[in-house]
């Protein structure tokens, strides 16, 4: 078997809080993602899902333990990593074309080349004709497409997605999920997709990892053996989908409750 694309071994991440304390986001987390695998990470709010992505991307470094991407320990931002952010991270002062062309230009491609490739990707995400618009002139779904094209144009071998569709309305969301699947099918990228939505996780992924309420660690891993290509909007009606959902939910529910109780206490205290 090929060596994993992403490995986290016994990873702990602590942050200093503004009050001078220490907050442990992740504790002893171990996770492996195979090349070309679509791995979804679910867990309750504040369990360190986003921190996991930050560690893989090299935006943050682990306090303890080891993070490896394609076999090499992560010390800075690894080559070949793409990141789709939860909030809008497209550059508001750049047109759609310039936004998508940013990656290739940062990697040294001449402006004309970068723009040609950007046009291609803009078409692929269905935004042809909007090249000269600024982000404020686009709807939320369209901005998300720009973000997707912006990361995919670099041909990432590892794609990290942090609740990318959580801000979208339900219809736009399943549309985008389907598009993500078809775009992903044409690459061989390994995906780590963080979400709090279990349905979304099962519909998209090959494997679902449940993280405990913070400090986060892996509670369980579930294979999703639903056939591909999938239609995200319809796959939810399959009996097998429901079975998997129930199996994972029985695990996730406890964590959600723990997290909910804590928030209630935090709000009361």
């Amino acid at each position, binding site marked *: 078997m090929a060596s994993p694309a992403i490995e986290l071994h016994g990873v702990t991440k602590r942050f200093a809080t503004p009050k001078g304390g220490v907050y442990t986001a992740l504790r002893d987390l171990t996770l492996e993602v195979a090349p070309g695998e679509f791995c979804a990470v679910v867990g309750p709010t504040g369990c360190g899902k986003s921190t996991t992505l930050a560690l893989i*991307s090299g*935006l943050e470094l682990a306090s303890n333990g080891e993070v490896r991407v394609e076999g090499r320990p992560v010390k800075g*931002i690894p080559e070949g*990593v*793409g*990141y789709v*952010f939860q*909030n*809008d*991270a*497209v*550059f*508001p*002062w*750049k047109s759609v074309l310039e936004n998508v062309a*940013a*990656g290739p230009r*940062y*990697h040294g491609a001449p402006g004309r080349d970068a723009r040609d490739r950007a046009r291609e990707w803009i078409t692929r995400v269905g935004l042809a004709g909007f090249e000269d618009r*600024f*982000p*404020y*002139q*686009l*709807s*939320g779904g*369209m901005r998300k497409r720009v973000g997707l094209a*912006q*990361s995919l144009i*670099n041909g990432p071998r590892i794609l990290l997605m942090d609740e990318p569709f959580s801000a979208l309305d339900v219809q736009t969301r399943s549309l985008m999920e389907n598009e993500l699947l078809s775009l992903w099918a044409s690459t061989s990228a390994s995906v780590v997709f963080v979400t709090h939505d279990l349905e979304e996780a099962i519909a998209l992924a090959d494997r679902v990892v449940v993280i405990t309420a913070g400090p986060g660690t892996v509670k369980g891993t579930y294979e999703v053996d639903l056939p591909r290509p999938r239609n995200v909007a319809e796959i939810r009606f399959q009996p097998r989908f429901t079975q998997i959902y129930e199996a994972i939910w029985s695990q996730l529910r406890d964590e959600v409750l723990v997290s909910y109780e804590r928030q209630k206490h935090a709000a009361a205290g």
Partner: protein
Amino acid sequence: MSVRSTLPQASVVGESPHPSPPPQAGEGNQAGIIDADLTGRRSRAARRRLITIYGLRLLFTVVWIGSWELSTRLNWVDPFFVGMPSGVVQRLWTWITEGTALGPLWLQAAVTMEEAVIGFIIGSLLGVFFGILLGRIELLAQTLSPFIKAANAIPRVVLGSLFAIMFGLSLWGKAATAVVLVFFVVFFNAFQGVREVDRNLIANARILGADNRRLTTEIIIPSALSWILASLHISFGLAIVGAVVGELFGATAGLGELIYSAGHTFDVNGVFAGMFLLAVLALIAEGFISALENRLIKWRPNRVSGEIPI
């Protein structure tokens, strides 16, 4: 004068605004007619409002100037001390037709504007440069912070006397006074602008492969630009203050010098006439800065209009 008071209304830009999507982002066709009707009504309402505003401004001016003129004419207050509008107009007219005691009027305006503009440009450039430098290099900012605060706390116009000694009667003394006034406003805004850059955008650019130089030129500077441009509105006024104060410490020409010489001869109307000219010049400059702002920030949803929001 407060130096940190230029919080731009654009500070929301950093946190990715969610404006209502433009019409093309999905609106039914059958709504088109109603929309057109609505737009028409709305633009008529906007025009009515504009007319009302201009009307009220006119009314304000008439009441203000009228009561001033009336109270001095009826000798309720002594025009020797407060001047009178008709006298100010007369003084302006003599200056325009016969020139001032210092030479032709346009020359005085040109001299002061030259000093202010040179000071403004140098001060802004230095402010932007050091603001971004210190904003990017934490250690430098922490090291220099007490010195900057101290320098900001002292009334820097007194440096004008120093510059008068250094540069004599030349325009550089006045420009230098303008520079020290402009610098701090622009510096603090540029610095704050750099600090306020959305961390998401920086993370995104780094992941996409931007090196430090690209990060500065393509993310930090455009993001800080809203703050910097907002500070330019205030700092041009300060540049004029610098030029005028500089003229106080020794000059042979300029609107400031004109005002002082009018003051020395108890010509109150002359003082007001000079102030009026300074205000006109400041408004013209403000127009240029707004135009520059609109040009540079065309990616922002609510552009800065010609109107000055207070």
